[in-house]
């Protein structure tokens, strides 16, 4: 299992303000890492830094081996603009291939084929020509997941992937992600509020709140004080 990225005593922030410090963690091939934390704990800053949109204020995020920043596929949260956007599923999924294009103004046959294979795999091939704004929430998330897979197949960064989905669609989404992780050995980094699902599916947990509160495997987390306290809170919230 090769290490794909690691942080050593890294501090993150923007506009000269540090919002998250003392980060020490590694992500290896095939890991399923859940990043937990309250609102304002620095989750979105960490995510933007992983994507290369911010630079760390101290230390760095190292990509190892043949992994680079470009190998991260990204599933962002939906924006207001997208809700009434006239675009077909195919157009959106293909736009994931854009990072390969450079200055080439069109998509190649291989790229279209790749997009087709991924849509097939995620079970959205029959939605190909449908309009994005007419799909259900779960279908829309699958489309965005397919787009993320088009841009990179080694590592996926998911930002609260089940926000706004009902229980069944959430479950399907989690199963799909777990399947990608286990059968296609895609490394998963997921930012989540949903502690139950995180504990169910993740292999590693990173818990942050202005600084690193915990990093380790899921089993270690369940036995740690931070984990138990958070689980109790989460349990209360979910009942």
């Amino acid at each position, binding site marked *: 299992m090769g290490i794909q990225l690691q942080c050593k005593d890294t501090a993150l922030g923007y506009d000269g303000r540090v919002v998250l410090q003392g980060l020490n963690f590694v992500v290896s091939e095939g890991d399923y890492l859940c990043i937990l934390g309250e609102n304002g704990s620095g989750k979105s800053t960490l995510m933007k830094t992983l994507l290369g949109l911010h630079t760390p204020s101290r230390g760095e995020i190292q990509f190892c081996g043949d992994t680079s920043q470009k190998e991260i596929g990204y599933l962002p949260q939906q924006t207001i603009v997208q809700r009434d956007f006239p*675009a077909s599923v195919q157009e959106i999924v293909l736009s994931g291939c854009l*990072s390969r294009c450079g200055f080439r103004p069109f998509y190649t046959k291989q790229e279209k084929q790749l997009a087709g294979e991924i849509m097939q795999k995620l079970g959205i091939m029959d939605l190909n020509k449908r309009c994005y704004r007419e799909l259900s929430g779960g279908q829309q998330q699958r489309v965005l997941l397919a787009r993320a897979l088009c841009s990179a197949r080694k590592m996926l960064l998911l930002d609260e992937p089940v926000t706004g989905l009902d229980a069944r669609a959430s479950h399907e989404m989690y199963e799909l992600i777990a399947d990608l992780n286990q059968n296609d050995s895609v490394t998963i980094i997921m930012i989540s509020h949903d502690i139950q699902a995180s504990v169910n599916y993740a292999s590693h947990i990173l818990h942050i709140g202005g600084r690193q509160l915990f990093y380790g495997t899921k089993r270690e987390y369940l036995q740690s004080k931070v984990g138990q306290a958070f689980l109790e809170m989460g349990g209360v919230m979910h009942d």
Partner: protein
Amino acid sequence: MTDLWNTLVYYFQFPFVQYAMIVGLLIALCSSLLGVTLVLKRFSFIGDGLSHVAFGAMAVSASLNAVITIENDMIVVLPVTVLAAILLLQTSQNAKIKGDAMIAMISVGSLALGYLLMNLFSNSPNISGDVCSTLFGATSILTLTLPEVWLCVIMAVIVIAVFLLFYHKIFAVTFDENFASATGVNANAYNLLIAVITAFIIVLAMNLVGSLLISALIIFPSLSAMRIFKSFRSVILCSAVISVICAGMGIILAILFSTPVGSTIVAADIAVFILFSILSGVLSRHEKA
């Protein structure tokens, strides 16, 4: 009917009518291409603000003309409008300054100062005629000279070429800026590109419909297309077709019934918008049934 046809044939013998048609159709095509992106990105207000800036710049150019001779107003108007486009875009992205207030300030400010300058310094005998022509287009499309027509053609070709070359990137940046920048597309650069092309189109379109009506030319065809069509490509194609047909019809009607060109074109755009709205209502009811 044959009378109308004969009148039309008679008018189209004149080069200035032919010029008006060529330039009008090209401007309509360009503005509709970008209109879709501007509407979807919630940038339509930038188009509106810019058109007022262009009016102010036109007034400055007219006033300067009293001192030094300026052969073509575009030499002044184009750079000023492009600069304003960049400025408006930066401020609207900067959360610390209220973007909409800034745009309102710039657009109303340039209208007021433009009118003031025109009154103070212009040595034209008919100032209110000049102002009316700049704001509503009036007759300026029918007084184009051959070099102006060539300038319009060249600018239109540039706009269309840029749009075709960057079509997929423009789609990605419009649909999801975060994702696009995360995959290494320079979203800010493309936003800038979009704003600069918008400035180009607005300066071009001032001739056709005047600065107050430009937003209509940009917004209506794309809104109409979005009522019916469901993919980005079909929306863009449809809005281009609507825009070109409306501009052509508008110019012909304006010639036949001697109405102002700009407002006739916009009236045609509005009619199509209403038609498409009704059509989409009927279609969605049909789908449910």
